[in-house]
């Protein structure tokens, strides 16, 4: 299953609901383009909801890092929401879990933006 994204706004925060696989190729490119497009349009409070992401490879991890740093460099903030066990474990072993702002409650994540 390839990656699918849908975008919604909640209280000034952009939530990107991701599903499928974030892997080298289409999945990574789709995520990258979406985040860059959001930032270009001035949406700088972003939540990536990864609740339906069932697979991610090292390229996908790289895209999450890229999304995080690109958003931060443009004065924005990006959080990750609803990690599946696979993604959670991958971020743990790559020591990225503490780098990202990871949430498991959408309302709290939305409220948590500065």
């Amino acid at each position: 299953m390839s990656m699918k994204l849908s975008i919604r706004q909640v209280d000034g925060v952009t939530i990107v609901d991701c599903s499928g696989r974030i892997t080298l190729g289409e999945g990574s490119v789709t995520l990258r383009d979406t985040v860059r497009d959001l930032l270009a349009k001035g949406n700088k409070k972003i939540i990536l909801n990864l609740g339906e992401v069932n697979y991610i490879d090292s390229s996908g991890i790289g895209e999450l890092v890229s999304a995080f740093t690109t958003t931060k460099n443009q004065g924005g903030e990006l959080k990750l929401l609803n990690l599946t066990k696979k993604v959670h474990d991958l971020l743990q072993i790559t020591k990225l879990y503490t780098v990202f702002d990871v949430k498991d409650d959408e309302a709290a994540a939305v409220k948590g933006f500065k």
Partner: protein
Amino acid sequence: MEQQVSYTLDSTLETVDSAEEKASRIATELGFKDDEIMQISMAVREGAVNAVLHGNNYAPDKKVILAFQRTPEDLVITIRDQGRGIDLNGIPNPLAPENLLKTSGRGIFLMRSFMDVVEIRPSQTGTEVKLIKHVHGKPVGHQEGSQ
């Protein structure tokens, strides 16, 4: 699966997906547990990515050779490219603080995390990566009710 099976694959993104699917199917056939199947297929995917991108650089005339061998103790997977060979000394530690926010460089680390043995042999005619997963519990190939 036979004792040994090998595939010669093009240097394309489709090969990466295909290698992952083959690894998942074979690991399933051999009776590995779900989490081990995920680890094996992901390690193979990362190895295939390195072979296609960094080894063969998508060159249409260069192939990726993917082989699975079953022994009583192990599943042994070999991924060989036809590139110039990687510089093992030039691979940074992705867990070092200065590398944590890099967007690449985690493939070999993930392979080492998921497999029991990872051997990388670079040469001027290509890099060979050997991935070994030990069989825990029942012997490889033994499946209840298998035909």
